[in-house]
């Protein structure tokens, strides 16, 4: 057994993480638009990847904010982020192709106002509060947008509120009566928002955002381990979203998303265990307990 002693110092600056997280997230969410261009649903899983990129960035923001000592638990920051994110994301989905950009702008404005309230009305007086709330709100909105896009195959308001396949116009031509146009009527209750799948996405994302720093904080906290845990929990949430997406997109596309999320989870989980072993004081591989005189 060898114990490798290796300390991680400094790490990536927060602004770099923010830029990577924001750009990867927006680009991946836009890649789900390939579904419309190619008339398939194979690219739905890009939404999940975008959500994980946002969560990865958000974990570092939470670390930044919570190191000032909020007085309340780390999870509260994740909850408020998704509370704002839900409102901003639903509002933004109405803007069709501009949705991710509008989500960022609206979430940023609400986050800045909430940060101002926390700082100036509630008297928190934390220097990074406004910026952190702004970032966390954007993370919340992008995560929910990414997972919703993955679930429904698209981020448009109509795709999120109308069940797939319903509301198609059935046309029948009967010689005696002329053309009869009949509509099955859109099913709103069986959609991502109408079926309250958005509520599950809300909690899956909030858990993935609040858990990494809450689990890794302490004197031995190291950035790469926390961020790897963020990706791991993100993929874990993505597995659940992929399972839910079987109800909304075709089986092949949902299976692609499930396989991608399972592979991603396996890779990040093994990496996280390796990083935990690196940071642990000592690691003893557990073996079954043998009884004295036993075989």
């Amino acid at each position, binding site marked *: 057994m060898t114990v490798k002693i290796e300390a991680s110092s400094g790490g990536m600056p927060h602004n770099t993480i923010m830029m990577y997280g924001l750009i990867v997230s927006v680009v991946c969410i836009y890649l789900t638009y390939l579904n419309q261009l190619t008339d398939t649903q194979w690219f739905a899983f890009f939404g999940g990847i975008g959500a994980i990129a946002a969560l990865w960035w958000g974990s570092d923001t939470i670390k930044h904010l919570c190191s000032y000592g909020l007085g309340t638990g780390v999870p509260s920051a994740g909850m*408020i982020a998704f*509370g*704002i994110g839900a409102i901003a994301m639903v*509002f933004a989905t109405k803007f069709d192709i501009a949705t991710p950009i509008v989500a960022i702008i609206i979430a940023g404005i609400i986050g800045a106002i*909430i940060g101002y309230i926390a700082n100036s009305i509630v008297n928190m007086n934390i220097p990074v509060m406004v910026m952190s709330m702004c970032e966390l709100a954007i993370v919340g909105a992008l995560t929910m947008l990414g997972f919703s896009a993955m679930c429904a195959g698209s981020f448009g308001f109509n795709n999120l509120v109308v069940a797939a396949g319903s509301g198609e116009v059935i046309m029948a031509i009967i010689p005696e009566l002329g053309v009869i146009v009949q509509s099955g009527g859109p099913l709103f209750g069986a959609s991502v928002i109408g079926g309250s799948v958005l509520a599950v996405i809300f909690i899956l994302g909030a858990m993935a955002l609040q858990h990494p720093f809450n689990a890794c904080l302490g004197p031995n906290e190291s950035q790469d381990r926390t961020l790897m845990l963020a990706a791991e929990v993100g993929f874990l949430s993505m597995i659940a979203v992929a399972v839910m997406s079987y109800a909304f997109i075709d089986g092949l596309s949902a299976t692609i998303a499930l396989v991608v999320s399972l592979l991603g989870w396996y890779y990040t989980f093994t990496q996280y265990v390796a990083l935990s072993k690196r940071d642990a004081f000592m690691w003893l591989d557990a073996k079954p307990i043998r009884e004295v005189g036993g075989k």
Partner: protein
Amino acid sequence: MSALGGKAAGGEGINWQGVAVGIVIIIIALGITFAFGSEGLVIPLLGIIIGGALIGFGVHFVPVGGAPAAMGQAPGIATGVAMLAAGAGLAGLFGGAWAFSATGDFLTAVLGGAVGGGMMMAITCLMVNLTYVFAMGVPAASGKVDKDPITGYSFPEYKSQGTEGHGLPFISYVGGVVGGFIAGLGGTLIYIELLLVYSAGLPVLLEASAEAVAPLAVSLAGILAIGFFLINAVLSAYNITGTIEGPHDPKFKRVPRAIIGCAVASAFCGLISILIIVAF
């Protein structure tokens, strides 16, 4: 930068400059809503603002102990403000939503939500106290006051040395139930106002019948009401900075700040969520 090394900075007093900006934000939100939908949308927004303020007020009654309470070193329920408030609020929301769909009466629904929230806190406080007394073996004693303001029982004889008290005294229990009641009231008020806005606005937006849109309106209002509840609960938690014993705690004097803060936050978030039904 040390992890969790800093000290919570919540000072006393009210920052009047911040309050003035907050009031301006409320007025702007009301003005924009009026411009888009005249009185039809302004009254729901007022309901949302009042609901948010009620949540902020109610959360301060709930005895929150956090991790020290779990170790028997501080009185209160052994978890954070956000979790407790979310529990009480969601229980209230379910109660109110059921009452609204069953009766359709505004007052019954709002009171149903309040009773749901209060009952959830009553059960939580009872089971927490059973655990403290019979499983951890600590008597209920507050460290902030010498006598229980309601029963008059004295605390110092029962308080362990080096702790801030432990268990859940009667005043904290009453505070928990009152807090759950008020927070549940606020949460249900927000839900019903959003539901009324969406069931009126979504059929026009989606060009569909009101019956077809009903499930969508219910779930959208429900999800956003949860979001509102968490935003207001966390802002109140930031105001409390960690733990509070109930209405007898000196930190309770900070409550005006949370009420103003939650009203401003609800006003702006309410504006955005009402604008969902406006076609651009």
